[in-house]
């Protein structure tokens, strides 16, 4: 498939997933109920616009719950997938994901501490601990101002195990361990417009960086030697670590640790458009967004009226789908 066709299809996929996410839910609503709620919400948000008609019956469900949740899922997918692409370039390893820097481990500890002792500050603590984790992993790895990626990778893995042990400790002895446990698997059930605004801002900073720096990301795949092609490797690695941290810690702080999307979206995109970051980063971001909305749709409808953590869905559906693509690719049925 040619690049333009792939991107048209991916944009279409994004539109379909967003549309399905808003129009389908655990409460069955007619399309006109959903549409009228969205129109009313938009009208109400416009400054100086007086709303001529009454509030639609399902306005709260659509505008206050479903729409921010779907948008949040899309933005989280976008963030984790683009951070995943950059992480794989940073570590020169296709098995890398954005959590390798210690972000998920740190966030898990922060959330566990939060649920036990500061229940109204769980997100803040998860965010703070994830930053602390990256700083720790980064400091351990730094040798004479350089960041050897092998050391960074090993430090991240080792830190992840230690953080996992601390989190498990809180889960095993805590009074609110079920909340911690659910949080660890990720959910968008508490997402609101504030989260959407916050993550939009972060994406507005981070995503353009990765889209703009596609040449540098291509060169980063060649490690230290890329300095001979004109890349300031050490400085660029620090920039990548900063933006990966930003694009991962903020989504994790508000939606929990949603696995797999940051790993498989870049792979799916690579099978579609190849390894060149000029096309890979935007393609992976679109794949990640659509995948996350679809996973959340399954998470909130498959066992309605209750819902399951979205991390279970991403792993259970994303895993086999990824293996299917991998097998097809190996047999040569999928080409660039």
């Amino acid at each position, binding site marked *: 498939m040619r690049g333009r066709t792939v991107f048209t299809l991916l944009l279409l996929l994004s539109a379909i997933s967003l549309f399905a996410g808003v129009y389908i839910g655990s409460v069955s609503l007619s399309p006109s109920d959903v549409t009228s709620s969205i129109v009313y919400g938009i009208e109400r948000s416009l400054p100086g616009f007086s709303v001529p008609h009454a509030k639609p019956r399902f306005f709260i469900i659509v505008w206050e719950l479903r729409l921010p949740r779907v948008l949040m899922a899309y933005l989280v997918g976008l963030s984790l997938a683009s951070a995943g692409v950059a992480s794989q370039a940073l570590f020169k390893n296709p098995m890398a994901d954005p959590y390798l820097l210690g972000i998920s481990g740190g966030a898990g500890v922060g959330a566990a501490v939060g649920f036990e002792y500061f229940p109204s500050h769980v997100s803040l603590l998860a965010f703070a601990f994830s930053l602390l984790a990256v700083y720790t992993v980064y400091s351990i790895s730094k040798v004479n101002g350089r960041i050897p990626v092998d050391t960074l990778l090993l430090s991240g893995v080792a830190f992840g195990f230690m953080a996992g042990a601390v989190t498990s400790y809180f889960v095993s002895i805590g009074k609110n361990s079920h909340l911690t446990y659910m949080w660890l698997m990720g959910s968008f059930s508490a997402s609101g417009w504030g989260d959407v605004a916050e993550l939009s801002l972060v994406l507005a900073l981070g995503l353009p960086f990765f889209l703009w720096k596609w*040449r540098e990301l*291509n060169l980063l795949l060649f490690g230290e030697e890329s300095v001979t*092609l004109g890349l300031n490797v050490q400085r660029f690695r620090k920039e990548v670590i900063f933006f990966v941290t930003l694009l991962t810690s903020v989504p994790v702080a508000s939606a929990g640790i949603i696995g797999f999307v940051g790993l498989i979206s870049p792979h799916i995109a690579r099978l579609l458009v190849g390894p060149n970051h000029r096309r890979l980063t935007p393609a992976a971001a679109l794949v990640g967004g659509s995948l996350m909305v679809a996973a959340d749709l399954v998470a909130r409808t498959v066992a309605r009226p209750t819902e399951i953590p979205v991390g279970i869905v991403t792993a259970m559906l994303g895993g086999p789908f990824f293996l299917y693509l991998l097998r097809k690719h190996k047999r040569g049925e999928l080409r660039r």
Partner: protein
Amino acid sequence: MKLSVNVSFSYGSRRVLRDVAFSAERGELIAVIGPNGAGKSTLLKCISGILKPEGRVELDSLDVLSLSPRERARLIAYVPQSSYPEFNFTVREFVEMGTYFTGGSVDEALAKVGMLERGGESIMKLSGGEYQLVMIARALAQNPRVMLLDEPTSHLDINHALSVMELLSSLKEEKILITVLHDLDLAIRYADRVIILSSGRKVWEGSVGELTPKILEGVYGSRFEFVEGKLGRGLIAALDSKPLNPL
């Protein structure tokens, strides 16, 4: 145009290069030879800026080591030891990486290595020799004044090795060319000047005509004999009575 090198380098407390000094100009192909662990690859990494050595590397009195990576990439290109490509770039995408910060021409570089028609192919489907040519094309696309090559003929069959050396010979009038070679026979046939490293020191430097079997024996510990034939000068080597690495 003249490249002047005088560098030392240590990995921690281990001294790998000690005051290795030489200069290079256009018009001659320089081969750096020496036993394993002599510091040949380290020397190229120091000149190219991958490692930060003590000492100086100057190109026409311009301090190359103090330049930014982008400025340096316009002057010096480095072809690493060939390894299996891990990413499915096309030949053109791969060579284009040489031009990102230097503004060279991909088409010219591909034409020079005879791969212009194959830009759309995946680098993962190339043979070892073809991939080596593409790596040289990427360096050529930087349009550098100096090209450093680390064992460009390793893992290649004799035909591909010869074509790589012919290509380098054709480039020596326009660029300063320094190549590490393990294959002493190729070094004797194609190099104009030879630098021998051993245990991180330069132990000999001279034109290839001045190189004698005795000098090689002193460095490698094996016995050598030069032979003259219709195809030029070649080398025969035999293991000395005391093998270096008995199995």
